[in-house]
């Protein structure tokens, strides 16, 4: 029982950490000399490192907002899990926790999809997707599975 609880919390925290790293570290596209998005573009020219703020297009801002919202909802879901753990009656389901976590996963998915579709507008052809982008895609199924587990889980003594 305790093992199950620990496993669920670990999964949730893993998804949350991935979300944080994906949002904060600005490496959604990377090429040999530069990394860019979501917040700053850094180029390593002439041996030095030079960073500019990322382009202020509408789509980048939408991706930023969706990533931040997914973090907020995932944190709220963790908080709600602990609250519901102590206030739910026996046999009840963690619906609210699961809803918030599933919403968080949907936000990450929308953010990653929008970035995939719209990034050719401002990213040069030679660049490839960076690791923050990949982490966002990994965080999406983790958060989704975690949310579904919450919805299915029943509280036992």
């Amino acid at each position: 029982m305790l093992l199950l609880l620990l496993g669920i919390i670990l999964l949730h925290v893993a998804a949350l950490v991935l979300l944080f790293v994906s949002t904060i570290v600005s490496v959604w596209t990377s090429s040999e000399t530069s990394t860019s998005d979501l917040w700053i573009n850094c180029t390593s020219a002439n041996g030095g490192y030079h960073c500019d703020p990322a382009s202020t297009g509408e789509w980048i801002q939408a991706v930023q907002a969706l990533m931040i919202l997914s973090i907020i909802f995932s944190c709220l879901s963790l908080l709600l899990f602990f609250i519901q753990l102590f206030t739910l009656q026996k046999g009840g389901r963690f619906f609210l926790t699961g809803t918030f976590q599933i919403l968080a996963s949907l936000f990450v998915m929308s953010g990653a999809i929008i970035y995939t579709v719209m990034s050719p507008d401002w990213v040069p052809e030679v660049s490839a997707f960076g690791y923050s982008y990949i982490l966002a895609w990994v965080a999406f199924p983790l958060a989704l599975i975690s949310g579904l587990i919450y919805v299915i889980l029943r509280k036992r003594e």
Partner: protein
Amino acid sequence: MLTFLALASVVLLGIVPEQSQAIVIYTGWERHALIGSDIRLSCSFFSWRWTSEDVTFSWTYRPDGSRDSISIFHYTGGVAYVDNKGPFRDRLEFVGNPGRRDGSILLKNLDFNDNGTFTCDAKNPPDIVGRPSSVRLLVFEKVPIQAGVITGAIIGVVLGLLVLIVVIYYLMRFLVARRVFSLSVSKHGKKKKEGSQQRQIKV
């Protein structure tokens, strides 16, 4: 103690007049405008002296990438002289109020070649020592959205909806609970009345 105060006041009185002679000029830092539109470049100043009749305003323009400045506007002796042979001929208008320390100019029908730095220099005799202030003009085809506007809007709307849903949910629960409570009170009251009536009849 008293000697210290006297020394301090003498020192302060010695310093303050030096500073009060400087005129401080205010313009914007950067202005964005759409191509073909008009823009008002504002310039005002702060001076410890009353606004003199000999107050002068002058604007100079330095195109982006050039090192030369060209004078485009001068106001002196109550008359405004606008550019009549430079890059802004027929496009410059004086919209300031020198009596209120406002030396703003209006640039009409902007073009990409108008990108550059505009410097305003104001003098209020005898207050003439001061630094001219510059404003940078950027002309865009499409005004870019500031970073973070859409981000903040989306986050605000979603969180606002969340708060709204929570409030509505608790409000419905509260109203339903009150209705149930008032119904149960009236039922309880009826039962009491019936009980007392029965007892009266028995007696």
